[in-house]
C-alpha cells in the first residue's frame, strides 16, 4: 500500500516537474559533487604520497585514514558544527547552516575514503612499476602523477565510493546545514523530514528518485570508464 503510493508519488513528482524538487535535486548534486571535487583534489595526491613515502608514523597514518572511512556522519557533522559555529574557531567565516558548511562536512567524510582507496591502488601499481620507473630515473615524488594517471580506472571506483557515501549521507548535513527549506534542504534531509512528518509515501518517493539519480551517475561513470579503458588498454 505504502510502497505503491511511493512509486506513484515519485512518478508524479518527476512528471509534474515540481520546481521545489528540482531545487532540492540541484542542491544535493551541487553539494555532493563539490565535496567530491575537493576531496579528490586533496585525497588523490595525499593517498599517493602515503603509498610512496616512507617516514616514521606512516603506518599510524594509514591505519588512521582506514579507520576514518568509518567515521560516523553525526560525529563528522558535530565536529564541523563546533568548528563553524559562531562560538567556534572558524565562526568568523559565517558559513554554518549554509551549503558551504555541508560541503565541508561531506568533504571531511569522504576524503578518508579517497585517501585510503587511492593509497591501496597506488601501492599496488608501485609494486608493478617501481623498478621500471626508478630505472628511468623517476623519484618517488615524480612517480605520484604517473601512478595516479595510470591508476585512473581503479581510482574511478574510489571516487564513486566517495560519491556514494556523500550522496547517501544525512546525519552530518542535517547538523551543519539545518535543513532550511529552499536553502539547505537536500534529498536526504527532505526524506528525513517527510519521514518525521509521517508522510512515508513522499519520503519513499524521494528515496526512489535519489536512487535513480545515483544509479544513473554510476552507470555513466561505469560506461565512460569502460570505454576509456578499452581505448587505453
Amino acid at each position, binding site marked *: 500500500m505504502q510502497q505503491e503510493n511511493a512509486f506513484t508519488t515519485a512518478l508524479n513528482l518527476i512528471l509534474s516537474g515540481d520546481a521545489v524538487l528540482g531545487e532540492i535535486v540541484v542542491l544535493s548534486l551541487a553539494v555532493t559533487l563539490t565535496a567530491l571535487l575537493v576531496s579528490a583534489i586533496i585525497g588523490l595526491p595525499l593517498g599517493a604520497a602515503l603509498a610512496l613515502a616512507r617516514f616514521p608514523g606512516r603506518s599510524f597514518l594509514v591505519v588512521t585514514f582506514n579507520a576514518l572511512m568509518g567515521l560516523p556522519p553525526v560525529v563528522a557533522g558535530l565536529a564541523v558544527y563546533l568548528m563553524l559555529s559562531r562560538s567556534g574557531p572558524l565562526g568568523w567565516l559565517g558559513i554554518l547552516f549554509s551549503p558551504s558548511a555541508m560541503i565541508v562536512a561531506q568533504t571531511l567524510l569522504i576524503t578518508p575514503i579517497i585517501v585510503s582507496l587511492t593509497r591501496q591502488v597506488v601501492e599496488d601499481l608501485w609494486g608493478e612499476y617501481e*623498478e*621500471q620507473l626508478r*630505472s628511468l*630515473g623517476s623519484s618517488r615524488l615524480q612517480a605520484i602523477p*604517473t601512478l595516479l*594517471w*595510470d591508476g585512473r580506472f581503479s581510482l574511478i571506483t574510489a571516487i564513486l565510493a566517495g560519491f556514494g557515501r556523500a550522496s547517501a549521507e544525512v546525519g552530518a548535513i542535517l547538523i551543519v546545514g539545518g535543513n532550511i527549506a529552499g536553502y539547505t534542504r537536500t534529498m536526504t534531509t527532505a526524506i528525513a523530514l517527510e519521514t518525521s512528518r509521517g508522510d512515508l509515501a513522499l519520503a519513499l518517493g524521494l528515496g526512489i528518485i535519489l536512487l535513480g539519480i545515483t544509479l544513473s551517475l554510476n552507470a555513466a561513470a561505469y560506461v565512460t570508464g569502460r570505454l576509456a579503458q578499452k581505448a587505453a*588498454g
Partner: protein
Amino acid sequence: MHGSFSILPLRADGLTYVIRGRALVDNVSFVVARGTRTIIMGPNGAGKSLTLRLCHGLLQPSSGSVTWNGAAQVNGRKRHAMVFQRPVMLRRSALANVVHALSLTRFSSADRQARASEALARFGLAELARRPARILSGGEQQRLAMARAWALDPEVLFLDEPTSALDPAATRAVEEMIEAFHADGMTIVMTTHDLGQARRLADQVLFLHHGRLLEQTPAEEFFERPRSEAARAFIKGELLW
C-alpha cells in the same frame, strides 16, 4: 657519441648482496670496457639479474662497490639504462611512453616529442606511435622498451633476459636492435640463458654460479675451452641451477 667524456670502464669490486644471511651475490669483481658486449650467464639462481640491478643502481650492495670510470655513480642524470624481461608500459600511447621517459632526463620539453618520434621511426615502430602501449603484443612492447632505452641515449645498456618471453621472430628483432645499439657505440651488459644468443652476441662472458663469479672470459674462449667444471656442464646443458 659521448666522445669527450665517458663513464666507462664499469668496475665491480667485491660486489656482495646478502639477504637473510645468504649471499646471493658473493664477492663478485669484474670490469666492463667501453664499446664491449658482456653477457652474464649462469644457471637459475646464479645471481645474474641481481648483479645487473646492483650495477644499474636499483639495489645497494651489502658490501663491495660499483664504480664508473673511478667514480661512485650517483642517481640523477644516469648515463646507463635498463631493459627488463617484462617491460612495464604506462597506460598511454607508445609515443607518450617514450616522451614520459624523456621527461625524466636532461631532454628539454621541446626536444622530447621529436626525439621520441625519432626513436620509434628508427626501429620501425612509427606506425604504432598512437596505439595504447598496453595493448601491443609482447614483442612489440619489448621493442618499444628498447626504443625507449635508446631514446635516452645511454652509454651503457643493461638488458635482463630481454627475449626470454618472446617468440623467435620477436627475439630476432630484439637481437637486431642490440646489434644496432652496439654499432652506435653503446656498451651492452646483458643476461641470458639462451646459449645460442650468447654465442651470437657476446664479446666476453661472465659466468656466475651460486652467486660467485667463476669466469670472466672472452666469448670465443668461453664456449671453446671453459675453465671451470661448472661452465663445462652448463654449456652441455647439464647444469640447470
